[in-house]
């Protein structure tokens, strides 16, 4: 009988205690798994959203992200300059505003994004994309609220945030229904040509909030070239923008996850140490007898280590589906926070989380077994046998 089979028999000898231990590890492991998903979840989710936009460099006049700051007054000529760089494929100007979309007496407040070219920061779900002036794509929320569909005409009344004077309403044709990566749940949104939006706001078509750039293949190089061209502007590749987000807004999640990871691992450690110590103390006589029969110190120590590994291994495997369910539930709760994009997630699976999870549990199995292993390693055979008879 090999060491692992022997450890398994020892475990099933006291099924209730072993099941409790395994369930405890499963619960702790699930929390640990979730903390690992949380530690990088927002960053990964944000990277996914940025990638889905189709751009890999953004150019702004301020480092205030994620919301852009003051206008780039010379956005159009700047975009034209940048577009000439060999490391750049395309440049678009982006303007964001708020507006009322009205149809047949129904009015919804909507977030508008005006864009000067392609690729578009949205994905058309139904109908077609905007083809020029007078076209608009709206998201599902707006379509539902206005009962609009491709081909419908709606009225746009912009109340542009930097201008209190209400410009005259504009009639736009709904070209399609689109998905916007940064849509918030139930909030209406619309996309149109930047020039249309500037006109609706009675503002200069030269200005924009920021520029979005698609590199020719190397975002970091494109960002460096643009920064060299316009050192007065803030230029960030997606990776650099994520780096800033990690350092600022998302650092709390990492800290929380680190603390909770340490707590859960410590709990698992104590749980298994206590279980194994009690188990070993109850069979000191048997261990001493095995040693007297010629079992080596190494062998009896390995038996304890294997028991620990089995409890933590089985619990660890069970913890994965449990953790996935828990993560989905917690994610749904956290996503109820107002103003969050619907596509943003707090808990995001990544393969290396599995590796870290397994590594932490393996280390826990070894550490948890350390004390009971020490007990059996140092067990005085003769006096233990004598004490067992006396007791």
């Amino acid at each position: 009988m090999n060491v692992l089979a022997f450890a398994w028999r020892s475990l099933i000898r006291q099924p209730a205690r072993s099941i409790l231990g395994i369930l405890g590890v499963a619960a702790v492991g699930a929390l640990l798994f979730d903390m690992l998903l949380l530690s990088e979840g927002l960053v990964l989710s944000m990277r996914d959203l940025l990638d889905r936009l189709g751009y890999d460099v953004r150019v702004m006049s301020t480092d205030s992200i994620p919301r852009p700051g003051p206008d780039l007054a010379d956005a159009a000529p700047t975009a034209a300059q940048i577009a000439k760089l060999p490391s750049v494929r395309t440049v678009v100007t982006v303007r964001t505003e708020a507006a009322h979309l009205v149809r047949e007496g129904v009015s919804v407040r909507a977030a508008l994004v005006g864009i000067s070219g392609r690729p578009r920061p949205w994905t058309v779900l139904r109908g077609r994309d905007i083809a020029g002036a007078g076209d608009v794509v709206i998201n599902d929320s707006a379509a539902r609220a206005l009962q609009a569909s491709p081909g419908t005409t709606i009225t746009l009344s912009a109340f542009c945030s930097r201008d209190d004077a209400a410009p005259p309403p504009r009639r736009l044709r709904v070209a399609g229904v689109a998905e916007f990566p940064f849509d918030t749940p139930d909030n209406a949104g619309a996309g149109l040509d930047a020039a249309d939006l500037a006109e609706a706001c009675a503002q200069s078509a030269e200005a924009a909030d920021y520029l979005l750039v698609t590199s020719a293949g190397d975002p970091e190089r494109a960002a460096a070239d643009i920064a060299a061209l316009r050192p007065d502007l803030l230029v960030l590749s997606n990776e650099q923008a994520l780096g800033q987000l990690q350092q600022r807004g998302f650092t709390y999640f990492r800290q929380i996850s680190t603390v909770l990871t340490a707590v859960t691992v410590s709990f698992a450690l104590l749980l298994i140490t206590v279980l194994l110590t009690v188990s070993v103390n109850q069979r000191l006589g048997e261990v001493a007898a095995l040693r007297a029969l010629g079992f080596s110190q190494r062998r009896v120590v390995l038996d304890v280590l294997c028991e620990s590994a089995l409890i933590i291994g089985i619990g660890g495997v069970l913890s994965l589906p449990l953790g996935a369910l828990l993560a989905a539930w917690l994610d749904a709760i956290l996503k109820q926070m107002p103003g969050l994009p619907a596509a943003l997630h707090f808990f995001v699976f990544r393969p290396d989380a599995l590796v870290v999870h397994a590594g932490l549990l393996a280390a826990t199995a070894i550490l948890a077994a350390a004390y009971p292993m020490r007990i059996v390693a140092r067990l005085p055979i003769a006096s233990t046998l004598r004490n067992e008879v006396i007791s």
Partner: protein
Amino acid sequence: MSDAVVAAQRISRVFPMPAGPVVAVCDVTLTVAAGEHIAIRGPSGCGKSTLLHMLGCVDAPSSGTLVFDRRDVSTLDDRARSLLRLRHIGFVFQRFFLLPMLTAAENVELPQAEAGAPKRERRARSLELLAYVGLGARADHRPAQLSGGEMQRVAIARALANRPRLLLADEPTGELDQTTGEQVAALLDRVNADGTALVIVTHDPVLASRARRVLTMRDGRIDHEAAR
């Protein structure tokens, strides 16, 4: 003695205690020859079990020399002593110490597995030994399904698993009624008759009387020796 299995030369065992050292075994010289049958008697606390543990290399003398199979045990590290016990010494305990989660056959297989015997070989040997102790039909029974006498017989089969030269038994009938004790005693006689040296520590005068040499201990010393 050339055919000595184990030879103790003036061995003592002293336990350091808070109230002062306790001498459990004092200056004992004893040789166990191959195939010998020795019983050690004496009142509780006289050092019988401690002497047995030293002869079985599970405890080390505080002084004196212990030679097992021409090897000075004091020069062996823990691993070597474990190996020596595994291959050459069998132990039978008062409380049996069978592993409750294993069947009788698996309990007997265990020391063979530790010694590296192939699975098929150790299974055959286990069944052979269980038949030898009269429990061939109980191979797949767990200890909880066996009587005290049956458990001790399985423990004897386990002790014989690796064909030891020396079998040490510490109060092997201590937990058994008289009839069952006699059956176990008869089995031990048979083991000895088949060539295994046997040292039994016992309070039971009937069990002791079956030995060819009976040593009586008092205060850690061999007080009297009788041969049959």
